[in-house]
C-alpha cells in the first residue's frame, strides 16, 4: 500500500486534536483511510439524544473524489435510505477537493437538523414527511429511541 498522503495525516491529526462538537471520527487501527464515526443527534431535532454510528472511507483518489459515508445505525430520515446511504450534494456532484472530512460530517449533522423531503432517497419516508410531518417526526423519534440509544 502506498504511503498515506500528507493531507489525510493532517486532517486526522486535526480531527483528534480539535474534534468537532457532537462528532467523533476515529481512524481504524488497521486502515487509516477507514473512520469509525459517531454523530450525536442535534438538539431540537427528532434525533436528539441518539448516537448514530457511521462509517467513512477515503478512496484512493481522495481528495479529488469524495469520501464514501454511510449510516450504520438505522435512522428514519427522508434523505437516508434503508442501507444507510446518504443523499447529500457535496458527497456527489458538488464535491470539491477543498472540502474535508470535518466539513462533510458537519453537513451530515446539519442534514439531521433539516431533513429535505423534496430531494428524497427513502421515498416512503419522504412521502410521509410531506403529508403528515407530525407522524413522520414521531416515527423518527421512535426509531432514534429504538436503534440509537443505550448501545
Amino acid at each position, binding site marked *: 500500500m502506498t504511503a498515506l498522503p*500528507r*493531507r489525510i495525516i493532517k486532517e486526522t491529526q486535526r480531527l483528534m486534536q480539535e474534534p468537532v462538537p457532537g462528532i467523533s471520527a476515529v481512524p481504524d487501527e488497521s486502515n487509516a483511510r477507514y473512520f469509525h464515526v459517531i454523530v450525536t443527534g442535534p438538539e431540537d431535532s427528532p434525533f436528539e439524544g441518539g448516537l448514530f454510528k457511521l462509517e467513512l472511507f477515503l478512496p484512493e483518489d481522495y481528495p*479529488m473524489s469524495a469520501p464514501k459515508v454511510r449510516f450504520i445505525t438505522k435512522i428514519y430520515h427522508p434523505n437516508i435510505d434503508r442501507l444507510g446511504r446518504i443523499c447529500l450534494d457535496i458527497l456527489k456532484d458538488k464535491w470539491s477537493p*477543498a472540502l474535508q472530512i470535518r*466539513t462533510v460530517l458537519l453537513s451530515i449533522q446539519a442534514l439531521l437538523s433539516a431533513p429535505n423531503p423534496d430531494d428524497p432517497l427513502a421515498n416512503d419516508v419522504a412521502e410521509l414527511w410531506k403529508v403528515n410531518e407530525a407522524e413522520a417526526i414521531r416515527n423518527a423519534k421512535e426509531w432514534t429511541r429504538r436503534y440509537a440509544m443505550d448501545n
Partner: protein
Amino acid sequence: MSGEEFESDMEYSDDDCCYEDYYNIEEDCDAEQLDPSKTDPEYFLYECLTVEEVERLLNESVEILSNTLQITPSLAKVLLHAHEWAIQDIIVKYRGDSCKLLVMSKIKPPHPPESVASRHLRHQVCPVCVASQSSDMFSSLACGHLFCKDCWTMHFEVQITQGISTGIGCMAQECEVLAPEDFVLTLLSRPSTRDKYQQFAFRDYVKSHPQLRFCPGPNCQVVIRAKEPWAKRAICNLCRTAFCFRCGTDYHAPTDCATIKKWLTKCADDSETANYISAHTKDVSLSDVNDCPRCHICIEKNGGCNHMQCYNCKHDFCWMCLGDWKSHGSEYYECSRYKENPSIAHESVHAQAREALKKYLHYYERWENHSKSLKLEEQTLQKIKTRINKKVMNASGTWIDWQYLLDAASLLAKCRYTLQYTYPYAYYMEPGPRKELFEYQQAQLEIEIENLSWKIERAETTDRGDLQNQMDIAEKRRATLLKDFLEV
C-alpha cells in the same frame, strides 16, 4: 468542407441554373414542381462529415470568434460551447456587456476575486494537499483560487476518468468557474490523458452544436450536419444507419419525436402485458402461427404480406383480424381503425381500463405485426434474388428485365416502414375529423401495401406493368399521407 461551400449547397445551385436555362427556358413552373424540397415531404439536406472535417468546421468558428473579440481560442471554445455555437449571438452579447457574458458562461466569477495577501508570499500551503511549496508552483483560474499545480493535474485526471472534460471546474468549494482547454492542457502531461480529454471535449462540442449529430450506428465515427434540426431522415453514408436527425432514434415519420418516445416507453413498459395477452387470447395474431379461420388448418406466416390465402381451402383472409379478405376491399378497409366505444365515458372505471388496454393492444399489434412483416419481407428479398437467378439461368428474361422486382421490394419496405409508424400517431390522436382523415389515408396505404406485397411474392413474369402500377399507387398513398400529416 468550408462553411461557404456548404452555404451554396443549401441554395439552389447557381451553376446548375445556367444549364437548366439552356434546356428549358420559360419553364419555371416545371422546375418548381421538380424541386424536391417542395414536393417531397421527406426531403432533407444534410452532409456526412468525418471527424477531421468536423474539427475543421469547429475550429473555423473558434477562429472567427477569437479574432472578432480578441480573446484566446480556448476562451472562445468555452463561449461557443455554452451558447450552442451561435457566433453572432455571442458577439452581440459580448459587445453589450462582456462581463455579464463571461460570468454567465462561467469564465469569470460573479464577484471579482479578493486580492489575497498570500499571493505575494514566496511559499504557501495548498489547501488540497496541505503541502507548503514555492509560489510559482501555484496557479488559479479567473476566480483567483490558488492550488498547487500537482493538485490541479490530479483533479483533471480524476475528472477525465469520469468522462468529464468541458465541465471541469475550479477545485474551490461552491466555485463554478470552468477550466478552459489551455489551462487543462498545460497542466496535463500524460499523452493518454490528454488524448482522452480532447476526445471527450470533441464529443461535448458536437453535442452542443445544433447542426451536428453523431451517427447512432454502432462504432460509427461519422457526424451528420444539417442546417435545420428537423425531425427528418438522415442516412449515414458509411454505415447506412437511418435515423431521425432531431432525436437520433429510428426514423419515425409521420409520428413526431415526443410522441414516438412516449409510445416506445409505453411499449417497453407494457410489453409483458401485451405478450401475455396475445399468447393467451385467440383473436390476436402476434405469433407466427394461426389457424385458417375457415378450415382450421395450421398456417405459418413465412412472408410479409398480411393478405393470406389458405393453401388447403384457398380461403382469403387477413392475418391481422382473421376476417375475410373480401371485406378488406379498397373503399371500406377497416382493419387498421380502432372503433372506440362511444359511450365509454359512462361505463365503470373497470370497463374503461379494459377498453384502454383493448385500444392500446389494437395499435400495438398492428405496429408489431408490420415490424415483423418488414423482417419477413427482407427474407422475401433473398428469395426473390434466388428466383431471379433461376429465371435468368432458364433464359426467361435478362437481369435487366428482372431489376424492377428488386425496386418493388425496396419500395415495399419503405412504404411498410412508414405504415408501421402511422400506428403510434393514430393511437395518440384526438377523435375528430382529422383523425378520420388520417385513418382513411392509413387504411388506403395499408391496402395498397398488402396488394403490392401479394403481387411481389407472386411475380412470375417479366411483365412489369401491373406491378409498376401498384408501386406507383402505394408510393402515392404514402406521399399523400406524409404531406398531410408530417410536421417537422
